[in-house]
């Protein structure tokens, strides 16, 4: 059980708000599309803060400009992975950026056990820290 306010993983740009409704998700999709960004859906059951490469639910949808169509993909991903973390990422290909410009969660497991902090005491009072997800002790696909 996580002990931070909200008791939940706070990755993504809207994690301190109540879970987004489909209407709210669509509005954010619209914003990204207006900027000319491509939207990708990614999922994982290993939410370690340094786990960069969540699995892609297909390639970013460079050619899909219809938010309703993208929402349908999101909902299919949710149906396939109901207990995974799922995030929506908007990719900007503009020179000088060429990087994600938005990233927010649209699905999370009902129970989030959180992370352990493992300390290895070293000389001179230094400590080497490792963060370990409780859920990731189990094999992929059996974690939540």
């Amino acid at each position, binding site marked *: 059980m996580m002990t*931070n306010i909200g008791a939940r993983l*706070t990755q993504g740009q809207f994690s301190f708000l109540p879970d987004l409704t489909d209407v709210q998700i669509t509005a954010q999709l619209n914003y990204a599309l207006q900027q000319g960004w491509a939207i990708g859906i990614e999922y994982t059951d290993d939410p370690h*803060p340094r786990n960069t490469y969540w699995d892609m639910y297909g390639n970013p949808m460079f050619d899909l400009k219809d938010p309703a169509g993208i929402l349908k993909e999101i909902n299919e991903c949710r149906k396939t992975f109901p207990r995974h973390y799922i995030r929506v990422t908007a990719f900007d290909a503009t020179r*000088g950026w060429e990087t994600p410009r938005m990233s927010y969660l649209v699905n999370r497991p009902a129970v989030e056990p959180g992370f352990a902090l493992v300390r290895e005491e070293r000389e001179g009072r230094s400590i080497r820290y490792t963060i370990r997800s409780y859920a990731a002790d189990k094999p992929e696909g059996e974690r939540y």
Partner: protein
Amino acid sequence: MSNLSPIKAIPVKADAATAKRYKAGVLRYVEMGYWQPDYKPLETDLVVVFRITPQEHVDPEEAAAAVAGESSTATWTVVWTDRLTACELYRAKAYKVDAVPNTGPGTKTEQQYFAWIAYDLDLFEEGSIANLTASIIGNVFGFKAIKALRLEDMRVPVAYLKTFQGPATGIVVERERLDKFGRPLLGATTKPKLGLSGRNYGRVVYEALKGGLDFVKDDENINSQPFMGWRDRFLYCMEAVNRASAATGEVKGHYLNVTAGTMEDMYERAEFAKSLGSAIIMIDLVIGYTAIQSMAKWARKNDMILHLHRAGNSTYSRQKNHGMNFRVICKWMRMAGVDHIHAGTVVGKLEGDPLMIKGFYDTLRESRTPVSLENGLFFEQDWASLRKVMPVASGGIHAGQMHQLIHYLGEDVVLQFGGGTIGHPQGIQAGATANRVALETMIMARNEGRDYLREGPQILKDAAKWCGPLRAAIDTWGEVSFNYESTDTADFVPTATASA
């Protein structure tokens, strides 16, 4: 292109006029070649605008020529040794003077002029802010023929920019490393800034990060004092950072200030921060341009984000008639290679006119900035793909101003709520949560296309219905504003200072 020339040899003149020019004695600067109204700056020239207040009886062209002369090759008298050099190339050329609007007879301010001066590229050593500034803001600022002098703006040629590393990390890579996109980052400076022990200090860091901030920060004058040595601070802060990261599943950081009396000490502190796994260190502007460049190179080499606190800048950037504009510091710091710099809040407790601050932020973040006199940008500047610097807004800001902060500062900025986090009536975690909820709520509203600047107070009130910490923050600080007139304002349009 015809204006790319200067390879063509400048012939050594040996006519009668030249012989007269180099006769021993004193000449007016305009007669020595520093005033050239027909000169067209080359693409490779460094071009500068100064604000000059000449002494009485010194005409503006002579004042401009004197500034050009004293910031390049001149001395007070004619020297024959000029003739051993391609001296016409090395002379800075004042080519334009304009009266500054709203100065002179009939106004409250004595007559000032903008003087435009071009410097050949060969006057400057590659990759050295120290060398650049030794000319441009060297002796010339104490020169008696002018009452006051202010460096307003500088066009740095692409050829010169490309000799600088630029930001060690830059906005794009910083965000990728932190895994944070689409919203401003949130920070706070530990308070009280002086006096806490390492153990107590780390407590503030832990609470603020766990509550929802991305960063906590040492203050500019926290180095290694009797009440807290630097090693203790680093150790306790990293415990706090890692505890908070585990508690939230998010990447967190604390800017460990490595400012010290010598470079050796700074490198030692930076290496220790790295060995503890810190993502970011900080330095103060007062360490000097060369030290800043050294730390930027170290940061690039060691995958470290480099935060710069602009401690000391207001001693020369605040008054309008003398010193230098902060936008020039922004340019130099982007060249020198820092990743963060404090650049104003518009609505907080420190100096900052909204139009001027937009000029600073654009200078730090854009790939190319067009001329924008209302924002104080006198030149178009191509940044030659130097990375982008993340501006930091810090000083007297709170959650109740979130709509204004996003409106004025955009999303690529670190918003630092020190008092607004630590002074929260329900505690530090609640203070951090209030700020984060206000931020995410406002970004969501902006993206939804709402008129968030106008509706901002209502948007925050609605979020406060389900978020107790935000409600308490608005009840405590909702009415606080710092509504004073700025001293550094645009010359070209009437301005107003924003308030809550």
